[in-house]
C-alpha cells in the first residue's frame, strides 16, 4: 500500500496526470495519478490515506519547491492537474460524508479584476492539501463574498488582486465581512499586495505564495 501512495505522490509532485499525458517527458507511457488513484481505491486503500499520504505529500513538495523558485507556474499547473485527476476519484467519498476534509476555503479575485492565474494556483494547492474549495471566480463583489461567507460559516476567506487599482477593493470587502462577522478569517494575496497592506486593511494573513496559505490553514485547522 505504501508503494502505490508513494507513486501517486510522485505523480502529483511531477505533474503526471494519466497514462496518455506526455508530461513529464521522463514518465512517458507510465500510469499517472488518475489510474493509480483508481487502483488504490479498488484495492481498498482508505480515502483519507490517499489524501494524506499521497496528494498532500505531492502538493506540499511542489508547493515548497515553487516557493523556493525551483519550479514555476507550468510545473505547478501540471501538478495541480494531476492532483485534480486523483481528486475526481475521491470526491464521491467526500460528498457522501464517508470521508472528511480539513476545512473549507472560499476564494475569489476581487471586483474590477480579471487576473485569475495566481488565484487558481492557490485554489488548487489548497484543494490538494485536503480542503474543500469554493472558487467564486473573478470580478467578485463584496456582497457575493459576504453571501458565500454566510453559506459556509466555518470557511476561511481568500482574496486575490493583481492590480494596484483593484487591491483597494480588498479593503472594502474585508470591512463588509468583518462588520458583520468580526471573527471571520480573511487572507489576501497577489503581486501588488504586501504584509503592510494586509495589516492596514485589517485582514488576518498575507502570503506571497500558495504554500504560505496552506500552512496558515493547517495551523488554523490544528487549532
Amino acid at each position, binding site marked *: 500500500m505504501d508503494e502505490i501512495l508513494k507513486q501517486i505522490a510522485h505523480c502529483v509532485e511531477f505533474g503526471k496526470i494519466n497514462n496518455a499525458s506526455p508530461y513529464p517527458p521522463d514518465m512517458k507511457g507510465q500510469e499517472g495519478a488518475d489510474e493509480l488513484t483508481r487502483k488504490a481505491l479498488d484495492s481498498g486503500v482508505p480515502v483519507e490515506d490517499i489524501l494524506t499520504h499521497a496528494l498532500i505529500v505531492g502538493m506540499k513538495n511542489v508547493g515548497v519547491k515553487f516557493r523556493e523558485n525551483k519550479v*514555476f507556474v507550468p510545473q505547478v*499547473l501540471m501538478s495541480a492537474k494531476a492532483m485534480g485527476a486523483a481528486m475526481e476519484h475521491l470526491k464521491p467519498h467526500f460528498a457522501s460524508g464517508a470521508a472528511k476534509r480539513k476545512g473549507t476555503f472560499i476564494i475569489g479575485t476581487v471586483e*474590477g479584476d480579471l487576473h485569475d492565474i495566481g488565484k487558481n494556483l492557490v485554489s488548487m494547492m489548497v484543494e490538494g492539501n485536503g480542503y474543500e474549495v469554493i472558487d467564486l471566480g473573478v470580478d467578485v463583489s463584496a456582497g457575493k463574498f459576504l453571501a458565500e461567507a454566510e453559506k459556509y460559516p466555518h470557511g476561511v476567506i481568500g482574496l486575490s488582486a493583481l492590480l*494596484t487599482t483593484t487591491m483597494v477593493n480588498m479593503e472594502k470587502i474585508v470591512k463588509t465581512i468583518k462588520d458583520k462577522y468580526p471573527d471571520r478569517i480573511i487572507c489576501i494575496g497577489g503581486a501588488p499586495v*504586501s504584509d503592510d497592506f494586509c495589516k492596514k486593511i485589517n485582514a488576518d494573513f498575507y502570503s506571497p505564495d500558495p504554500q504560505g496559505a496552506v500552512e496558515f490553514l493547517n495551523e488554523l485547522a490544528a487549532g
Partner: protein
Amino acid sequence: MPRLKILSKEVSLTEKVPRGAMLLDILRTAGHEMYTPCGGQGTCGKCRVYVRDRGYVTSCLFPVMEDMEIVLPEPSEASIMAEQYAHTRQLPADPGPSARLSAHPYGVAVDLGTTSLVFHFVNLMTGALVETRAILNPQAKYGADVISRINYCVLNPQGARILQQEIINTVNAELLRFAGNAGTGKTDVVRICFTGNTTMLHILLGVDPGPIAYVPFTPAFTEEKILRAADLDLECHPGGEVKILPSLSAYIGSDIVAGIASLKPSTAHKNYLFLDLGTNGEMALCTPDRIYCCSSAAGPAFEGANIEHGMGAAEGAIMSYDGPGRFRIIGDTRPTGICGSGLIDLVAWLLAGGRISGDGYMAGDFIIATAAESATGQAICLTPKDVREVQLAKSAVASGINILLSHAGLSADQIDALYLAGGFGNYIRPANAASIGLIPRELCARAMPAGNTSGTGALLSLRSVSFDGILEEILSRMKNLELSDHPDFVMQFAMNMEFHT
C-alpha cells in the same frame, strides 16, 4: 525637527524637515528626481537611497525621525532615440489653415509617453524639422506605469487635474524654451498634435481615466479631438489648433494607431507585425484587410522594474552581454545595473550555456559584475527570481503574438516583417529575443527597429493634413482582441513560460 543633510553629485544641503515625514517625499520636495515605478507602494525597491551609518533604505517607507545624512545616486539622463527611419511614410507638407495664424508659423508634435515626452518642433512653412527633444514625463513620480497613474487619479479627488497640470506645465515650459531659442514669438506656434496611450490622453484633457483600469475597460473617449490652444492654457497662439489623435481602445492608444500609420512597409511585405515592448506590450498584426491588435500586459521587467539590479536604458546600464567581462554599458561609466536589452542577452547566454534550464531553473545568483567592477560598490547579479520575471514577461508577449497569429489564420513564417517600436527596439538583438522565446524564431531575420513611431505619427499629422485619411483607413481595419476573456490565453501563457532549449 530633525535635520537632514542631502549629498549628491552637484549639491549638498542641509535642511530641517518635519519629524516623521517620509524620506521620499522630503527628497522630492527638495527637488530631487526620484524613480518610483511602484508609485511609493514599497514594493519595487527602486527608491532606495543610502543613509550614512545605516545603509540602504526604501525611502518611500522610511519616516525621518532623527538627524541623518543621505547620499543620493548620481543623476542619469534617460536616453531616448527619436530618429527617422527608412520605412517611415513621407507626406507632402500641408499643415492646413491654422498655419495662416502667423507669418512664421511653427508647430509642435508631442508624443506623450508614460515614461518620456518627445517633442518635434517644425517650421510649418517649409515642413522642416527644427528641433527634437526628449524629456522625462514629470508624472513619473506618481508611478511608472499607467495603472499607477490611474490609481492616483482614482484615490485623489483632484488627481486627474493634478496630473494634467504636470503635463501642461511641462509642455508650456518647452514651448517657452523653444520660442526663446528660436527667436520667434510664442504666438508663432500655431499647431500642436498629440499622440499617446489612451490614459495619457485622458489625463492631458483632465478627463478621469478611472474606467480604463476596471472591467470592462471603457475609456471616456477614443475619437480624435480638436481644441483651441486657449482651452488648455497652452503657451502658444491662443487660437492655434490642438489635435489629439484617435485611439482604438483602452489599451491601444493613438500612440499605436499613429505608429502603425507612420510606417510604409515595402510593397513586398504583405503581412507584418508591429511590436511595442513597453510595460503594456502592445502589438498589432497587419494583414492586407484586417489589423489584429492586443495589449499583453507584459509588465515592466524589460524596463528594469521587478528585476533585482534592473534599470531603464540610462547611463550606467549594461545594454548588451556576450559572456563574463564582455558587456557594453550605456555611457562611459562603470555599470550600475542591467536594462532590458542586456537582460535578454544575458538570459539567452545563460540558457545556451545550460546555467538556466528549459523550465527556467537557475541554481543561484549569477554575478554579472563584481562589487569592485560596479559603480554601486555592490555586485550586479541576476537572481533566480529575476529569471521568473523574465519568463512572465516574455510569455505574455509570445502568447499575445500567438493569439494574433491564430486570429489571422497565419503562421509565423508567413509574417514578412517585424517592426520593433520604441527605444528598446534599437538595442534589442532579435536572435537573442528569439532564443528566450520573446519573438518567434522565424522573425529574427525579419526584425527591424522602427524608432519612436508614436512621435513620428504625431509629426506626420502636424506636417500634413493628409495623414488624417491614412489614420482613418488604419483605424477602420483595426480589430481589438481582449485577452482577458480569450479562451486560449491562460493555457498559452502558462506553457509559453518555458524556454525551448
